[in-house]
Each structure stands twice: as structure tokens, then as C-alpha cells.
């Protein structure tokens, strides 16, 4: 498998502009700015089939195409480096090891929509990553890739690194924009979409780090080569972050369509300590869990994960072995969502806390008959009734844990304790 996203991360000093340039860096940007019109660039990215890697999988070229060409307002591009989905740590690797690929990709996206101001919104906790990116931006300015009249081609672009301050919801694009406008990270009702009404009401494109880092390769090698990798609806390669009960945790780049079981068993070394696999969350904590017996034939792409009843999401693969208490895992995730709800809409604000409270009492052996139905009902009432998709992200995994591991939850309530793990 050819490495696209991880092509640089193991090179010495990969974070420096010298190393990046010696490996072909910024050639794509030069080609774009000197030889391609924004329209042709957008067509090329559409043809590549690239879909957003932030979780929703929206086609990138199509998203850019929604930005009005003749708007008198300024336009903005924001690189979403808020990476906070539990189980996901792929963007952090790129930020720390290959910041220039992100910067180059961000400038390419800005050029596509004729934006002259771009932002990288990085989650506040990633201080080291912010330092690496900050230095890389200075290098790019000094080299003339950022600033006025880059490559002498008459295009100006400014890039501002902006640090968040600890709030998962600022990863949601409209929450991010509210945060960048200087307020709480409160999501906004869509439509209108950021493409027409984004930052300060101006046309804005928000793209994930991995999405943007894919662009230089696609521009240089051509959309056709990218589209040749993967499946019908999932093109190219994707990063997966693997954690939990697995022998070789880490970030893996995989051709879309790769067999999931083989990936876990061979590439990641399988479950350690002679234990058996019990369940796996394939797309970050917001996505429904799969039981071990549901993995046969599943491949790593948008279509196959969806057919299996879950979603590819951010590609955060969380592996749980047979000693894992699923009630405890469900409670852990519900606590995360209860903590992170921005509190703006009542189904989400109240519902997340409710689900957390009930999962907690079931976990402690204080559950009552009807508690599981109550969670399923709360979850059902959140779904589709909130301002932003956070509500669904909290509701889906809660319901999936109960449905997939029902006997274990029932046993917790009946026997007033955990029957799986000692702890």
C-alpha cells in the first residue's frame, strides 16, 4: 500500500521545511497557484473522490463548490485541528510530524475558494503541536509560501494559528466558528451552512487536518491516481487511530476497502494476553459499537461500516477484549458526552446527563427494571431533535451498547453487580 498521508512522518526532521521540501513539498502549491484556475482545482478534487476526514465524510470538492464565487464579503478557510473525538489521535501525528503538509493543504484549499485569510484552529491542550505548527508557519512565511503575492503569481494568503481552550464541541464546525468569533463554542442551526454564512457571516470552508493534508499528493499525482485507490464510494487512503486492547496501538494508513478483521489481527497484532476480542468501536466514541461476531466481511470504508450498522467516523478504532465490562464502557462514554454537551438545547443537555446517571447506577449494581428502556427512550428522543449532530453522537453509542450487549446489562441489573470483570 502506498503511503500518502504518512509518507513523511518517519523522515528525519520531518517537521522542518527543509525536510519537507527535499521530499517534494510545496511543489503542488506552486503548480496550483501558477498553473491552475480555482475552478480547475475544484474539479480535480471532485474527480479524486476525496471525502472529508473529520467524521461526516462529505465530498471535499463539492463543499468548496458551494462557496459563492462573486461574494463581496471576505472568505475564510479553517483547518479543523480540534481533534477531540475519543479514540482519535491521527491529526495530532500529522500536526507534530508533518505540519507543512497541513499548511500546504490549507493554502491550496484557500486558493480554491479565493480566500485570503485562513485559520488553523488547534485544540488548546496540544501545546507542543501548536509550537510545531507555529514554527512551521514562520518557516512558510519566510520561504514566501504565505504572505503577499506567493510564487509571484499575484495571490495573497495569510494563515493564523488559533488555539482553542478545552471544549469538545469546538470540533463541530459551527461550534468552532462561534469559538473563533470570540464566544462560547455554541453550535448554530444549519442551514445556513458555513459555505455561505460562516465566520462572521462570511463564506467559510471548514476542513479536517487529514482532509487538507491529502491535497498536496492529489494535486501532484493527479486525481485519477487517488481515485484508483479504495472502493466505489470511498476513495484513497484513510488514517485509523487504534487504541484499547490491541497489541500494536498507533496510527495506521490504510487503503479504503481493506478487510477490517485482517487489519486488527495482522496489522495491529490482534488482542494481547491470549484474550478474545469482545467488541470494537470503529469510528471514535460517537459511533455504534460492533460485537466481535459482526466483523466478518466488514471492510474499512464508508459503505461497509454503514452496512454493518455503524459509521467510519473519524477512524478512531477502540478495541475491547473479553474482560471488558460493557456497562462500564457505556457509562464511561455517556459521562464524556454529559461533560461535553454545550447545554444549548434541552434534549441534549438533559438527556446526556440522564443517560449518564442511569448507566452509572446500573454499573454500580443499583439499576432497576426498566432502566435500559429508559435509556433507549431518552436516546431516541435526543436523536434528530438537536441543533447540532452532537446529540446523535451521544445517543447512538448509548443505544448500540445496550442493543449489542443486552444480556450483560440485564445481568448487571438482576445480580446487582458486574459478572464480567473483577474490577
Amino acid at each position: 500500500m502506498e503511503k500518502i498521508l504518512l509518507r513523511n512522518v518517519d523522515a528525519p526532521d520531518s517537521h522542518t521545511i527543509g525536510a519537507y521540501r527535499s521530499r517534494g513539498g510545496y511543489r503542488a502549491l506552486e503548480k496550483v497557484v501558477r498553473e491552475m484556475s480555482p475552478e480547475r482545482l475544484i474539479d480535480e478534487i471532485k474527480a479524486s473522490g476525496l471525502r472529508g476526514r473529520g467524521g461526516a465524510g462529505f465530498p471535499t470538492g463539492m463543499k468548496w463548490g458551494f462557496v459563492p464565487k462573486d461574494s463581496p464579503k471576505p472568505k475564510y478557510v479553517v483547518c479543523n485541528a480540534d481533534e477531540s473525538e475519543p479514540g482519535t489521535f491521527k491529526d495530532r501525528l500529522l500536526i507534530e510530524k508533518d505540519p507543512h503538509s497541513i499548511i500546504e493543504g490549507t493554502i491550496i484549499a484557500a486558493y480554491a475558494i479565493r480566500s485570503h485569510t485562513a485559520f488553523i484552529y488547534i485544540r488548546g491542550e496540544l501545546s507542543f503541536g501548536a509550537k510545531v505548527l507555529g514554527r512551521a508557519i514562520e518557516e512558510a512565511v519566510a520561504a514566501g509560501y504565505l504572505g503577499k503575492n506567493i510564487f509571484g503569481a499575484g495571490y495573497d494568503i495569510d494563515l493564523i494559528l488559533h488555539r482553542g481552550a478545552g471544549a469538545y464541541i469546538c470540533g463541530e464546525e459551527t461550534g468552532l466558528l462561534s469559538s473563533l468569533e470570540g464566544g462560547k463554542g455554541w453550535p448554530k442551526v444549519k442551514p445556513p451552512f458555513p459555505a455561505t454564512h460562516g465566520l462572521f457571516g462570511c463564506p467559510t470552508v471548514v476542513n479536517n487536518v487529514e482532509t487538507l493534508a491529502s491535497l498536496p499528493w492529489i494535486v501532484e499525482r493527479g486525481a485519477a491516481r487517488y481515485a484508483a485507490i479504495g472502493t466505489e464510494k470511498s476513495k484513497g487512503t484513510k488514517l485509523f487511530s487504534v487504541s484499547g486492547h490491541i497489541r500494536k496501538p498507533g496510527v495506521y494508513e490504510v487503503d479504503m476497502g481493506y478487510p477490517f478483521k485482517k487489519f486488527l489481527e495482522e496489522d495491529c497484532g490482534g488482542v494481547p494476553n491470549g484474550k478474545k476480542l469482545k467488541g470494537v468501536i470503529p469510528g471514535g466514541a460517537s459511533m455504534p459499537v460492533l460485537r466481535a461476531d459482526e466483523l466478518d466481511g466488514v471492510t474499512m470504508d464508508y459503505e461497509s461500516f454503514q452496512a454493518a450498522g455503524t459509521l467510519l467516523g473519524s477512524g478512531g478504532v477502540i478495541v475491547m477484549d473479553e474482560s471488558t465490562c460493557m456497562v462500564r464502557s457505556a457509562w464511561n462514554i455517556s459521562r464524556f458526552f454529559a461533560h461535553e454537551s454545550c447545554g444549548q438545547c434541552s434534549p441534549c443537555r438533559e438527556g446526556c446527563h440522564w443517560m449518564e446517571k442511569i448507566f452509572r447506577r446500573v454499573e454500580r449494581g443499583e439499576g432497576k427494571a426498566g432502566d435500559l428502556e429508559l435509556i433507549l427512550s431518552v436516546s431516541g428522543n435526543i436523536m434528530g431533535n438537536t441543533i447540532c449532530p452532537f446529540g446523535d453522537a451521544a445517543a447512538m453509542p448509548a443505544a448500540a451498547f445496550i442493543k449489542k450487549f443486552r444480556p450483560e446489562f440485564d445481568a448487571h441489573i438482576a445480580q446487582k453487580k458486574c459478572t464480567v470483570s473483577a474490577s
Partner: protein
Amino acid sequence: MALEFSPETHKKFDAIVGRYPKKEAAMLPVLYLAQEEFGYLGPEAIEYVAAIMDVPVARVYGVVTFYTMLNMKPIGRHHTQVCRTLPCALAGAERITAAIKAKLGIELGETTADGRFTLSEVECLASCGTAPMMQVNDDYYENLSEQNVGEILDRLK
């Protein structure tokens, strides 16, 4: 209202605000600047930031209370934050927290009497492949064990 930026910080403030297309957008970086200068964001600091940012005090309060990294109260020199989310929990985060509590003699949310450590639990810090992990001030400590976490804390004076 005695709080004010030092002249150097004021220069940084001007530079930051000048970077953004609109002044309000500089709110988080300015709050970081204030937190660094004043140690934490108490009522006086919040009023000061509201004044220099030309926004109502209530707006700054809203922002400060919304984000976990902005502190309204003083905290210890080493803010020790253990990740508790699922991947870290699967790797034994609870045992790490228990070991730290025992070593420092404090509970979650507390600060040691000498002001050296404040202990908190936090949600996923994008370091799940090297779990369990914690963040102390700006630094990540990964692949923790009950043994090495004590040694790490000993080195933080």
C-alpha cells in the same frame, strides 16, 4: 481595579489583536495572555479583559466559564490532569489516578498544601494509543504505570 498588563504584555496584546480580521476573534488568545500574566482569571482579570476587548463583562464571563483550560481560581504549580476516557480507562487510567491520589494525599479537584500540585481528571487528550496518559501543565506524559507516575511527579518541583 488594579490589574493591568505589563508594557511588554500590552505590546503582545496589540500584536495579537492586529492579526485578526475582527477584534472579538482575539478573545481566546487575549484570555490566555491574561491567564499567563495574572495566574488565573478572577473577577478583576475578567473585567480588565472586557474593558480592553470592548465587550460586556458578561460575555467574557460566559467564555471563561465555557472552556476547561481557563481557570477562574488559582491552581497549583503543576496542574496534573489524568485522562479518564474509554481508551485510557481500558488501559488502567483509574489505577494511575488512585496512585497519584495516594502519593499526593489529595482528592480530585484539590491542591496540595504546598501549592505544588492540583489534581484533575480530563477527557480524551488525543493520546489514546499511548494510554494511560496525563498532562501536567503543557506537557504530555504517556504510557504511564503506577510505578513511573510517582517518579514523574517527584521530578516536578
